[in-house]
């Protein structure tokens, strides 16, 4: 799935990923491809993006808030 993590003046991450773990308003959640459409606010915590092959790498982004959207194309996070 396609993942974008962006601030108004900067793009932190853009690319394909296998899964995304984020601190959602109702608790931490891990999003896999084909997750149901969802919009949630984010709490303070760390967003973890895992590449398609787990061996390829893990990216971590500390956040203090923001909004996360899941649609059928992927995950979009605006901080």
């Amino acid at each position, binding site marked *: 799935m*396609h993942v*974008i993590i*962006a*601030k*108004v*003046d*900067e*793009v932190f991450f*853009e690319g394909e990923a296998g899964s995304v773990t984020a601190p*959602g*308003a*109702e608790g931490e959640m891990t999003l896999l491809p084909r997750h*149901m*459409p*969802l*919009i*949630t*606010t984010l709490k303070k915590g760390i967003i973890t993006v895992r590449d398609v092959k787990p061996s390829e790498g893990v990216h971590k982004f500390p956040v203090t*808030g*923001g*909004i996360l*959207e899941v*649609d*059928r*194309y*992927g995950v*979009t996070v*605006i901080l």
Partner: protein
Amino acid sequence: MAGLKAIKTKIRSMEKSRQVTRAMEAVSAVKMRKAQLRALSGRPYAKAAASILARVSGTYALAHHPLVAVRPLTKALYIVITSDKGLAGALNSAVLRGVSADIAGSGLAREDVSVIAVGKKAHDFFAARGVRIEAFHPQTDEITSENIALLVREAGQQFGAGAFDVVKIAYQNFLSTFEQRPVIHTIFPLSLVELQKLVADIVPVRGKFSKRASSGNGVFYNIEPSEEEVLTEILPRLAGIFVYHALLESQASEHSARMVAMKSASDKAGDLKRELTLQFNKARQAVITREVSEITGGMEALADKAI
């Protein structure tokens, strides 16, 4: 002849001025390119925010959110973005004139209008006219998300609390290197139509950030924890897009206007220098001619005596 020396000094000072204006032109050109590059970096964010907004638009919660409330106009707040420094042609005066005209057109008295000034020129202009300055921020080369959030917070809180019925932002819109035009946008009450128009302007038709189509309406979304809380998070961010865009446009405009102004100043200095050089040469020629005729005159006189 005294004129010769004076002309020579003028030529030299003209050459110095030309060096200065050419250096400023080069600096502005570099800064302008940087500002244009930065404008591209805000695009994925604008696109994503607009698509999330499309999901929650049309809901009951949005229509009743304090940041979109339309009230009868009694007090207005203007965020005016100008440069700190001059030497940029009609750049700032065009924005300031636009705001003055807008205030006059709204029919509000001076004491019902407040200004958040970004850039020294805006502050000086409105302070001199007795308009209340709500806040003043100097123009910076680096636009950070903290600056933007601060501006949005200042304006949003006042609007949400009902201190102002409308918040507008005025800046110089960058059309091309040679053409900028002052524009005034309404930020609060936040209008979805205006926002979508703005986003359509900034999102490129092709290239890196254009490939993700929006999934279309009619898809059912889970919204957590509630529509209200999502809106409270997202509306200030959307206003931030307006502010960010305005700051970038005005920076790109400032640098390109200064570049053009400095280019014409350099050209003019070059012309003047050429004219002065011509004048200098003529004066020099006149001096030589006079000296030659004096010498020949003296020789003639001596020759007369000898006979």
